[in-house]
């Protein structure tokens, strides 16, 4: 079987020359403009060049991807299982193929499956080729994620290994560190884990307790502390550990700062607790990891001493975009399975598929899958642009949207099956449990919404400083201009940002949707400006406002992605492009009205804005720490 992996890797190498060619061609396709798309939305602008046309892979890249995808897909799908049974070495392969049900029940991925994953090269997908990995681009990585996502436990194990576990070495590791660790990590001989969370420290870096002190001979750091909820904690040999160290400042004082370390299990003093009992992704290994006087050589500092915070942020930001395609893969599979059921199961002499409320669910699932797929590949395409563009905001948007869509769609799929869906005989309850974690890990959705909104507002706020200052100081010209613009807006402005029309970026069949997007973007820009004038830098405390801002942004990015993708499909004549156009138009209409609602909720005096009531309600409840209403049966006499 390892022959297959070798084959894959040689295929990858043979494609490398072509890839070099394609990468040199890439800049020609899209403009090298470094301006991020999502940030510009906050100013009410659409950075067309960044998102139109939809990123496309060349024929050679496409062939390369197909080569990788084939065997992996076979391995993950049940067809693969059946065909291998009939094939030569059946017994071993049967055990090795993915049996998600068994993984969930036993709470462990069987060793044969892990070996097979390693031989397929899946442990080193993004490791550069010179270190023995597959060296996949972000787009190709997203494509692979689509298949791996069929089993959540495996997806999480692989993601913890390479999206965060060894990512630090790729991003900031020195040449020596790369040469020393990456080859064995890429082959899967060593498994990596990312150790950041502590009992007292989730998102708060200041409360990290793990400490690394420099030994007297200045050759080692002595690492002490505990980390919790470490995925792969029991399997891993290489840990990326974040700990506080004393750093001497320029002015002679010393300060506690976070430093990242590469820690091998063989350094000694590394122990792990027993695997946690979880709701979902039960096959992945999550446990506590303790470091007791672990001696870490100074060469193993990742990045600079005291520079761990930036390393952590970079790693976390870089790993998020792939969730979109991973979830999309799972959703596509679910749609297939539930559609089969809905068309065969009969009630009142009619198949379920003829009932409107069932049809609605399929439309919803397809729409969500389409949107997240579009966003994921658009973002992956942006990330593959030369010059390491910063797409962390877009990645966060993809993560938030796809995780919530996953939870909603799996729940709807379970609903289609009714009582059967609730039974363990069907995979839906497992998928439901598995998908719940998506909203929590890699930054909870709440936190990512804050990130999206605040990053964008920071960008817009800087550029608007001059205007806001003039307004606040009562500059008559600026005030008059603002007022006249507001007046013009209320009279019904025609917003045109050039997405439609002759030779517009969006195909005419979606012109209506494009106009809706333009209108939303324009008024979003206005609202952001108003919010900045109202709250200034104290907007950080207005979390409910920020949530709405983030929600609008997510919708805007999603609308852009589907319009871009559907336009490309219809122009290049892909099959079923009319279906895509329909999906895009439906989604855009829905998102447009959602945005209008959210925009009006952001308006200070609108009746839709109930933020103050919500705050008061929660304050009353939290004061008493209980539900304080009288029982409906209570009497006063």
């Amino acid at each position, binding site marked *: 079987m390892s022959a297959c992996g070798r084959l894959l890797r040689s295929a990858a190498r043979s494609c490398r020359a072509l890839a070099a060619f394609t990468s040199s061609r890439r800049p020609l396709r899209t403009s090298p403009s470094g301006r991020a798309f999502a940030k510009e939305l906050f100013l009410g602008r659409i950075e067309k060049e960044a998102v139109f046309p939809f990123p496309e892979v060349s024929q050679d890249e496409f062939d390369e991807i197909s080569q990788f995808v084939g065997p992996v897909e076979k391995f993950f799908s049940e067809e693969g299982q059946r065909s291998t049974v009939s094939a030569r070495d059946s017994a071993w392969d049967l055990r090795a193929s993915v049996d998600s049900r068994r993984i969930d029940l036993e709470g462990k991925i069987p060793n044969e499956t892990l070996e097979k994953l390693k031989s397929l090269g899946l442990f080193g997908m993004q490791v550069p080729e010179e270190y023995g990995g597959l060296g996949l681009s972000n787009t190709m990585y997203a494509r692979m994620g689509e298949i791996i996502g069929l089993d959540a436990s495996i997806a999480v194990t692989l993601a913890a290994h390479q999206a965060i576990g060894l990512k630090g070495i790729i991003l900031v590791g020195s040449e020596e560190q790369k040469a020393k660790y990456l080859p064995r990590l890429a082959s899967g001989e060593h498994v990596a884990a990312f150790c950041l969370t502590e009992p007292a420290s989730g998102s708060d870096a200041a409360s990290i307790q793990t400490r690394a002190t420099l030994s007297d001979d200045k050759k080692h750091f002595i690492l002490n502390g505990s980390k919790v909820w470490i995925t792969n904690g029991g399997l891993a040999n290489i840990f990326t550990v974040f700990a506080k160290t004393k750093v001497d400042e320029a002015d002679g004082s010393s300060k506690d700062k976070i430093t990242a370390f590469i820690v091998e299990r063989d350094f000694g003093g590394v122990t792990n607790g027993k695997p946690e009992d979880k709701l979902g992704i039960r096959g992945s290994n999550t446990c506590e990891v303790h470091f007791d006087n672990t001696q870490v050589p100074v060469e193993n500092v990742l990045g600079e001493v005291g520079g761990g915070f930036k390393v952590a942020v970079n790693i976390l930001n870089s790993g998020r975009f792939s969730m979109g395609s991973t979830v999309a893969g799972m959703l596509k599979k679910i749609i297939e399975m539930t559609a089969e059921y809905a068309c065969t199961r009969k009630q009142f002499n009619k198949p379920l598929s003829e009932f409107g409320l069932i049809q609605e669910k399929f439309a919803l699932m397809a729409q969500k899958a389409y949107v997240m797929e579009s966003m994921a590949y658009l973002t992956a395409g942006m990330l593959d642009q030369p010059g390491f563009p910063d797409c962390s905001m877009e990645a966060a948007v993809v993560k938030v949207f796809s995780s919530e869509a996953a939870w909603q769609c799996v729940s709807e799929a379970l609903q289609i099956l009714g009582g059967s869906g609730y039974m363990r005989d069907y995979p839906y309850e497992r998928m439901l449990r598995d998908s719940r974690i998506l909203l929590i890990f890699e930054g909870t959705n709440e936190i990512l919404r804050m990130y999206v909104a605040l*990053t964008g507002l920071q960008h817009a706020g800087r550029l608007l*400083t001059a205007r806001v200052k003039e307004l606040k100081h009562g500059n008559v010209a600026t005030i008059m201009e603002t007022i006249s613009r507001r007046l013009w807006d209320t009279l019904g402005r025609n917003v045109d940002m050039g997405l439609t029309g002759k030779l517009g970026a969006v195909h005419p069949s979606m012109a209506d949707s494009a106009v809706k997007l333009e209108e939303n973007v324009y008024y979003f820009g206005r609202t952001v400006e108003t919010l900045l004038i109202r709250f200034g830098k104290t907007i950080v405390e207005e979390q409910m406002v920020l949530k709405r801002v983030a929600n609008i942004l997510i919708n805007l990015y999603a609308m852009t992605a589907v319009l871009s993708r559907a336009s490309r499909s219809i122009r290049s004549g892909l099959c079923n492009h009319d279906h895509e156009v329909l999906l895009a138009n439906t989604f855009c209409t829905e998102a447009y009205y959602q945005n209008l609602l959210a925009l009006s909720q952001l308006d200070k005096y609108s009746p839709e804005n109930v933020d103050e009531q919500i705050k008061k309600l929660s304050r009353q409840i939290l004061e008493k720490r209980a539900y304080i209403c009288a029982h409906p049966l209570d009497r006063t006499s």
Partner: protein
Amino acid sequence: MSWVRAIPQIRGWRGIVGAAFSGAASSQVPRQPLRHIHLGAAAPGPAPTPSSSSSSSLVPRPPVPHEELFGPGSEAGPQDKARFVQAVRAFGQRNAHRRGHVDFIYLALRKMRDFGLERDRAAYHLLLDVFPKDVFRARSFLQRLFVHYPRQQECGVAVLEQMENHGVMPNRETEFLLLQVFGKHSHPMRKLLRMRLWFSRFRAANPFPLPRPLPRDPLRLAGLGLRRLEPDLSARITVYQTPAPPDSTDSTLSPEPDRPHIVGIQSPEQQEALGRHDPARPVFVEGPFPLWLRDQCVHYHVLRADPLPPEYRVAEETPEERNLYYPMQLDLEYGRGPWDDYEFDIDEVAEGPVFAMCIAGARDQATLARWVQGLQETNPTLAGIPVLFRLASSTREPLDSSSELAEQPPPSPPPPEGREEQEDNRRQQQGQG
């Protein structure tokens, strides 16, 4: 307020209306004038006994014709409901025409507290049942217009008023009895309707509800008081000292007088604040301050410090590398607009932090020092902080403002001794640290 007070002074049937109208809200209104007029008219008698002084103002002082029915005073035997019921029955049997029932009812109302029945609705029903039925009902328009049988109606209102003062809610049976006795358009009926309207609305108006009856155990009572003082629900109540149990074998020795109870409360935030407190700056034990729990008064002490002078204050800065996921502060040059600044413009006087509170059985320094010792177990830093006692003597008015005391020497009665004691105490504290 003044008009409420004026109404009872109008004598005659309007007085009843006033009493019925003023309702629960005006029960604190001094009713002394009314009582005098009333007494003059109905039954002059000896000065009210202390036990009945707080009962209904409409109850006239006794001519006491039926006193013997309730037996000799409370010393003789157990005063319970059975005896009360027996007395009321005895009145009914002794006197088929119920002669003097108004006086009897007034007497019974006064006696209710002795029998512990002031919150017993059935007992009130028993009294209302003493009224002869149908006799006092108004039968014509004119009878309804003028008060029919004013003395009896007044008595009926007095029963209801006593119910009201003790928070007893009338029910269907009360209504039935009143209808039978006074009829639909009588003053007691109106009083009943008003009670029913307002009682149900005011019943849950108190944001700090207390159990009824209040616990007699001083420890539990102190716990209730401290919970009211400290809004933080994470705060922990600690009993630092329980009173020595009364020794049953040797009854001559009452519980040690120098072992009063000490109950304290401290929230985690207060504990944290005390941990951060600069040991060079003293903390103060101040008190006693009164706290009323329904009809009981407890006194509490606080452990507090003076506010930090501005030059010592360190502005807490959010370090830049704090949040792994999103920026904690925006790098912008402008703040909140004036139209969105919801803070009221209040002149705030900075008060020092309060670190802990306690309710103790005694208010002397020794007891409070024991509390501070107990606090040191959970707050190790307290051992190194000098503690000053600023206690108001129990005879004087309790401290109302600690800021003015900050400039004065402590107000404990013999200043030189007090000083010495404080110094001793400080030494002791530091020695322990």
